[in-house]
């Protein structure tokens, strides 16, 4: 699946940050950028899952379009002129990260994912050192009813990776989103304790895709969580199997 610069009948060129790059028909802007080592921050995106377009961190400028568009869910087209960063975009991205920190209770010092958290990494990379908006400090539950895993709503960023992996890869569709707006929550089945779910296969895929410390294995240590990253490599393989089945 490498198609960096070999022109094929299905390839075309576009400009990203002033450089001409080759893309394949059907690729998103993000996929093209990643093929050419152009970094665009992402959070809800995960290779192998249907793009969601919810975190808005991957927004890029496209010449001629009045609005910023999400690179993860916008198809690359011929002669597109994409700018992946600017002071304005960076300011927006930083504010979005701040909004995420303010939304729930992200207390890194006591989190098993400390050091392995994508939210934390994003904040560091973007130089977010202060949260300018008021913290919300919601009172949220921790669901420890499952034998092997834990869901801590305090650390969830509602990226829905767990929902998508559960439905698209595992085929169990245990995880879903309940409520709406600021009250949205990840739920199991029809909002039951995770341990009582009859659809959950305990495969652990949701835990392995979670970018934060919201989904964890019980009894894990910091070092164990570091391994999670590696397990994510599993996903592209799983996607291929899934596509083969169709």
């Amino acid at each position, binding site marked *: 699946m490498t198609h960096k610069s070999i022109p094929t009948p299905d390839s075309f060129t576009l400009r990203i940050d002033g450089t001409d790059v080759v893309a394949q028909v059907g690729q998103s802007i993000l996929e093209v950028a990643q093929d050419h080592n152009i970094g665009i921050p992402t959070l809800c995106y995960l290779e192998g899952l249907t793009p*969601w*377009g*919810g*975190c*808005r961190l991957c*927004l890029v400028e496209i010449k001629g379009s009045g*609005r*910023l*568009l*999400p690179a993860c*869910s*916008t*198809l690359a087209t011929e002669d597109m002129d994409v700018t992946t960063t600017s002071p304005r975009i960076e*300011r*927006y991205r930083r*504010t*979005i990260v701040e*909004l*995420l*920190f*303010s*939304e729930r209770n*992200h*207390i*890194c*010092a006591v989190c098993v994912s*400390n*050091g392995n958290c994508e939210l*934390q990494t994003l*904040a*560091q990379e973007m130089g*977010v*050192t*202060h*949260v*300018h*908006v*008021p*913290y*919300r400090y919601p009172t949220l539950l921790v669901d420890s009813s499952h034998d092997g895993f834990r869901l801590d709503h305090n650390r969830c*960023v*509602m990226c829905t990776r767990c929902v998508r992996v559960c439905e698209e890869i595992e085929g169990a569709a245990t995880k879903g*989103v309940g*409520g*709406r*707006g*600021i*009250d*949205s929550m990840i739920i199991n089945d029809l909002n039951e304790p995770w341990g009582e779910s009859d659809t959950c296969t305990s495969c652990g895929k949701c835990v392995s895709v979670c970018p934060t410390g919201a989904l964890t294995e019980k009894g894990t240590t910091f070092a164990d969580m570091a391994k999670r990253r590696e397990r994510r490599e599993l996903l592209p393989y799983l996607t291929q199997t899934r596509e083969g089945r169709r």
Partner: protein
Amino acid sequence: MTPDELSQLSVEERERQQGFEHCLNVCTAASCLSSGAEEVKKGLTTAVKEKGLREKCRIRGAGCMGLCSSGPLVALDPEDVLYQHVGVDDVPEIVESLDTQPVPRLLCDTTIPFFQRQKKIVLENSGRIDPERIEDYIAVGGYRSLARVLTEMDPDEVVQEIVNSGLRGRGGAGYPTGLKWGTVAKATGAEKYVICNADEGDPGAFMDRAVLESDPHRVLEGMTIAAYAVGATQGYIYVRAEYPLAIKRLRQAIKQAQRLGLQGDRIYETPFRFTVDIRLGAGAFVCGEETALIASIEGGRGLPRPRPPYPANHGLWGCPTLINNVETFANVAAILREGAGWFSSIGTEKSKGTKVFSLAGPLSRYGLIEVPMGISLREIVFDIAGGLPDGKSFKAVQTGGPSGGCIPARHLDTSVDYESLRELGAIMGSGGMIVMDESSNMVDVARFFMEFCMTESCGKCVPCRVGTYQMHTLLDRIYNRQGTKRDLELLSELCEVVRETSLCGLGQTAPNPVNSTLRYFRDEYEERLVSDGVRGPSGDPLAQVEMTP
């Protein structure tokens, strides 16, 4: 049915109606119903029966007559008399006086600007026909445009006619309707769909409900013409479940149209077929957004998705889909009947035709109005609505609901058209228009709309989900005299981020009410601020987030 049979039916029905000496139209739209119109109608029916006048007098339930502030309304045909605030007690007197002078006590003056300054296209039949009888619609020329379209015009010609008319979407954004039809017509797909958006979610707005309750066939005819133009065979009307009367009348209307061969296979005995089904809205405001609406019809959670691709190319079940608002479709039959030239002669250069508004606030008269584009806000507020009673003074008019803005007195002479309203930081919107007097505090108004957006946000994207919450918190803080200058700056910054980065129109426009009140009524924010120092200028450090290097 053939077009000739339609004309025949139309003539017969008109003759039947002319057989009555009097026709008493009782408004049975939601607002009059809630003030007792059904009882009045029953009372009139009984009285007429008891007096043995059934051959002479027709009592007809009709759609909205507009002046909801004076309901229940009863209109007399052919006398052209309008009675207001009619109660059951008034019934004997009304029936008694049918052959003599009207009852002066109940008379509503129809020469006032409320009636004279309006221009009715969408509402031309509203209050004049029985929405529950297809024959009534056919008697006033209904379904004739469809006959002409199917027998005399190519689909391209229909699209071109809509392009020439200059019609723009009435659901809020004002996208050129002809252009959209053309895109769907050109798109390729196994199937194509036509969807009528009747999810009307702006608080206080009821234009679409009134159209559906008063003249449902008009919307069906518009959709059918659209289906022919774009090449669709299946249509859906997505209606709010909170509109039971509109749903009932639509169901009835669809059955009647099927019975007469105006829906289903071989419409007007041509090869064209088209069927409309009703889908009930899930009750969330965001389901009115076109991609969320489509997801909801498909049976999923009503969440918006990024566009492009637009529904015109990739809509319902991935097929090309035309989605228009109720009022947009309600203009179509009239445009084809009177011609694009006629339609485009009404209004301004870029905004053609009329717009229906639901007018609310401390006004002498309020209700449902239809005005030509280009009319000034002043004419609407002071002529049509008769200004503010009891010496109250005008402060602002809000258009566009939670996506719109507040326009102050000094801009009252602005023309009502898409561009002018947008320049003022408001929008045409779908037709909500709320007038406010001196007693309204603009920070409070902004807070009200932000609360609406916050509770209606679907939560899919971060800037809208958390941003509306934060903006609401800041507005609340400022309103309660606890906000600082820094809070106000932060509010403005969040307005920009949420507008620029949200996924769908809800988030993108949620800051509008704040921006417009900040633009025209900044002093109302500033006078509530307390001095800085409560919180440091640089905000809370990410203290809890002790990051490992």
